[in-house]
Every structure is written in C-alpha cells, then in structure tokens.
C-alpha cells in the first residue's frame, strides 16, 4: 500500500516517453487522443464524489447560513446568527480547547510511537517475511470494529476493571481510581489505540524508500545507531510523518464516537457537540460549527504542509 499525495497523471507521460518501442508510444498517442474512454472509466467515481461529497459539503456551507425553528429543520435564509452563536458561547471555546488538547497529545504520542515502531519494522528486522508478518499483526485490528475496540477498554479501565484491581492488589492505590474511564485519559487511550497505525504505515512506507547505502555511509563515517536515526532516517522519513499526522489530526479533530463511548458524557469535543446538535435536528448551528471545525482542520494541515513540503518530499 503506497500512499502518495501527488496527482499520478503526471507520471504517465514519463512512462510513455521512457519506452523505446515505437509501437508503445504510438499506443500512448492513441490513448491520449481518446480521453472519452478515460472519462467513461472515471465517471462512476466522479459521480459518487460529486453526489455524496462535493454537493453535501457545499450544502454544509449553505445550510450554515440558514435559520431554524424547533419544528422546521431548515429555513432558507442568509443569517450569520449560527456563526454568532458558535463564537459567543463559552462552551465553544471549552470544546475547542479540549479538542486541540486531544489532538496535540494524541499526535505527539502516535508520532513518537509510530516512528519507533516503523523504524523497528523497516530497519531492525532483517527478513522481508518478518517485516510483512509483523506489519500485518499491527494492521489486522484496523479491519475490526472500531466500536468494539473502544468498548473493550471498559472492562479494563472501569471502576472494577482489571487495571484498578491490579493497582489495588499491588497496594499502589487506596481505592478504585475513577479517572481511568469516562475521562479525557480514557479518550486519549482510545485514540492512541485506534490511530497509531495511521502513523506506522506512511512512516514505514517512506522509510522503505530510504537508500540503505546512506545508512551504511553514515555508519562507516562513524555515526552511532542513534546518530544515524536522528540525522539520516528522521529527516528522510519526514514526509511519512507528515502524512500520518494529517490522518491523525483529521480523525481526532472530527471524532465523536470515541468521545461518546470512552468519555461517557463527561467529555465534550467539537465533533461530539456537532453530533449532539444533529441529534436534535439542529442542522444550521451544526453546519456552522462544522464549518469552523473544517477551517481549523485545514489550518492545521496547512501548517503541517508548510513545515514539510509533501510534494517535494515524495
């Protein structure tokens, strides 16, 4: 699985140009002359994204200016009331603060953990088979139910859960610790559990593209393992870290399921706030909130892209 953030169409020209056979460049010319076939092939994909992504997102923008009443969900209008509400309520600032805190903490943990695990897989294992098997071990949970993976923390972190029993049994604490579950701590544990893989895979990918000769050269020149890690491997896997970070930030910023299950009503995030508004069918304020959230996510991603030029790195 290779993830590139570059439009692939530009590669095709190279392929055709590289080929020495006259026939293949002729075939390529024929292919270029017939974009109609390409259009037909891209049509289902385009329709799905137009209908279920572009139009809905545009509607979120439109609806954020709508009015609403208790019994009428959507009233076409142009009002800034929804945005005024978003920015005038103190709860907004609290939820954004919590969400950004989650984002920062989870990003730091998953980036460090993901980097070292990817490094272990890419550079410390010596056979392809063990690399594949261990990467598979990491990714299998990704394909199982997110809700179950969150619910699974409840018998561990709960009041009578395994962790509390262990702590009590060892005499570390006097009574059951309440902050383990239905708390910000539990939500962070849940995020790290769910999203570390989102870091491991892109970092692993960019590490596998590093020329091993560079590592050898650094070692020959007297660099220690840690120096190689810090001065050679880390700079060269920045693009993987950046892509992983984009995934993790997008997931955490918009999440409401983990906050719901592991926060247990004690924790509020922006996503949760939007979901709550939607459960009361308050579409316009939810849309205004979503637009603010979207701008925040775009700002964070833009910041990330400006620190690391992804297109140049790939």
């Amino acid at each position, binding site marked *: 699985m*290779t993830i*590139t953030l570059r439009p*692939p*169409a530009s590669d*095709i020209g190279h392929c055709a140009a590289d080929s020495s056979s006259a026939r293949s460049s002729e*075939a390529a010319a024929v292919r*270029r002359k017939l*974009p109609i*076939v*390409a*259009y037909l*092939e*891209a*049509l*289902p*994909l*385009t329709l799905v*994204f137009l209908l*279920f*992504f*572009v*139009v*809905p*997102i*545009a*509607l979120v923008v439109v*609806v954020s200016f709508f009015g609403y009443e208790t019994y009428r969900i959507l009233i076409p209008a142009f009002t800034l009331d929804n945005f005024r509400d978003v920015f005038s309520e103190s709860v907004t600032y609290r939820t954004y603060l919590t969400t950004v805190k989650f984002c920062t903490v989870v990003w730091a943990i998953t980036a460090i*953990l993901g980097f070292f*695990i990817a490094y*272990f897989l890419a550079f*410390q294992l010596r056979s392809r088979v063990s690399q594949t098997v261990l990467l598979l071990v990491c990714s*299998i*949970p990704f*394909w*199982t*139910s*997110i*809700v*179950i*993976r969150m619910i*699974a*923390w*409840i*018998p561990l972190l709960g009041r009578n*859960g395994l962790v509390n029993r262990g702590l009590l049994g060892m005499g570390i604490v006097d009574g059951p610790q309440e902050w383990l579950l239905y708390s910000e701590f539990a939500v962070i544990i849940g995020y790290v*559990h769910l999203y570390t893989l989102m870091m491991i895979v892109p970092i692993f990918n960019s590490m596998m593209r590093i020329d091993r000769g560079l590592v050898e050269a650094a070692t020959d020149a007297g660099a220690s*393992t840690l120096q190689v*890690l810090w001065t050679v491997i880390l700079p060269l896997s920045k693009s993987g870290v950046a892509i992983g970070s984009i995934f993790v930030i*997008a*997931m955490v910023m*918009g*999440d*409401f399921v983990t906050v719901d299950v592991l926060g247990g009503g004690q924790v509020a995030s922006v*996503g949760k706030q*939007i979901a709550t508004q*939607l459960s009361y069918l308050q*579409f316009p304020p939810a849309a205004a909130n979503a637009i603010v*959230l*979207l701008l925040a*996510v775009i700002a964070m991603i833009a910041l990330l892209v400006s620190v690391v030029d992804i297109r140049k790195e790939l």
Partner: protein
Amino acid sequence: MHGAARPPIFYGLAVLFGLFVVFLYGPIATVVVLAFQGPEGGLVFPMNGVSLHWFAELFRPQSIGDIWGSFDRSIALGAIVMVATVLFSLLGGLAYRRRFPGATVLFYIVIASLVMPSVVVSLGIGAMFEMLGIERAWYSSALGAHLTWTLPFGLLIMLAVFNRFNPAYEEAARDLGAGGWQTVRYIVVPIIAPSLVGVALFGFTMSYDEIARTSQSVGALNTLPLELEAMQTNATTPVIYALGAMTTGLSLFVIGACLLGVMAVRRSRDRFGSDAGKAV
C-alpha cells in the same frame, strides 16, 4: 550484515513492539474472554464460570435492540460497498493511466474526502437528503457515505498498482489481436487480481465497521456498529461482549479468507505460471 550482532537498540525496540501488540490486542482479547462468562457473570472480571450462555442469548428473540436486523443490513451494505469499491476503483485506476482534463481536480477531491472529518460528511449527506425531502436509508444515503470512505483507499491502491504495472503485457495482447475489453478482461484483471482482493477486503470491512459517516446518514434503521454503540450505553450483561466477539470473529474470518485467497493465487501462479519474460 547478516549474522552481525544486533545493536542494543534492537532489544529495546523489540520490547516496545511487544508491548504495543499487547496494547493492541489485549482489550479485544478481554472482550472475547468475558463473552464466555457463566450465566451469572457480570461485565467485568472475575469470570463466574464458563459458558456459551451469552452467545445463546444473542439468538433469543429481541433480547436487546435489533441485533439481527442491523447485522443483516450491515452485511448487505458491506457487500454492495465491496462490489462498488472494487469496480469503481478499478475503472478509476484505468482512467488515471491516461491523461484526461480534470484528473488532478478529481484526485484532490478524493484525497479531501479521505481527510475530511467524518462528522462533516455525515452532516452534509444528512442535510442533502433532508432538503430533497428523501427519507435517509442504509441503501441510499449511508451507501453513498460509505463509498466516500472506501473509494479513496481503493483508488490509491489501484494507482499504486498501475504505477508498477508493466504495459508490455497489454501490448503483447494487442499484438496478438485482442480488443480493448479482451485485454482488460483476460490480461489486466488476472494480473492485478491479488490487489483487487485487497481492495475488496478494504471495501467490505471498512463498510462493515464504519460508524462516524453512517451516523447521520443511515436513517431510521441502524447498521450493526451503530446498534452496538447504542447498546453499550445501557448494557448490563455480557451479551454485548458476545456480540462483540461474534462481529470481531466475522472480521477476522473475512481478513483470513482474503489472505488465504491471495496466497492461493500466488501459489497456483508459481506452479502453473509460464516462465515467459523471466529471462529478460
């Protein structure tokens, strides 16, 4: 390098990796173990006997919620999403082998869909159906929502596959008189079959487990993950663990079947494959 002594950092990282695997699988394992609680057992340890009581409870009529209805819907939706994801990603991958105006815009839209917070997508689709006055349902709005999540993965895999695809095979087919459709059907698809299995795996399991994009787009009748989320807030018995163990088992079964399928294809190729081109 082989046989050289491992640097000390290797052992530290091996321990870290081991702990990470325990962290990854430990909670799921706990749920599976607790699903076998005795009939008197509770939601946490200790085990109060061992039984299949809670699995049997799942099959009793309406113990809690609409488990089997939501299960059927999730399976059906997963199957539709899987077929559509494989088909549309393959077609999209083929399209991106040529230059076509708008290719770059479409590519960035696909990437945007991948990183867009799910709650926004979900809200948008919900609002669209609300405005059009169409009832939201798992086979319409939720199907669309799932495709915005599975197709980016499918397309990215296909792009990676076709980046490495050797066009000489197609040229050979054309030289032998194969038409465009024949080339795709008998040459391209068999060669990339293992990747298509991979896309199918992504499509089905990601749809079957999806919750964030489904939540506002599913309408009145829930899918299984949403049913589970609703159940867990007032669950008082280990029946929810039995359901969790069952659905995890199903996911693992699908993953295993796909891996075995890919391995079987590889093995039969090794055995029956021609050696043409090996000398080049």
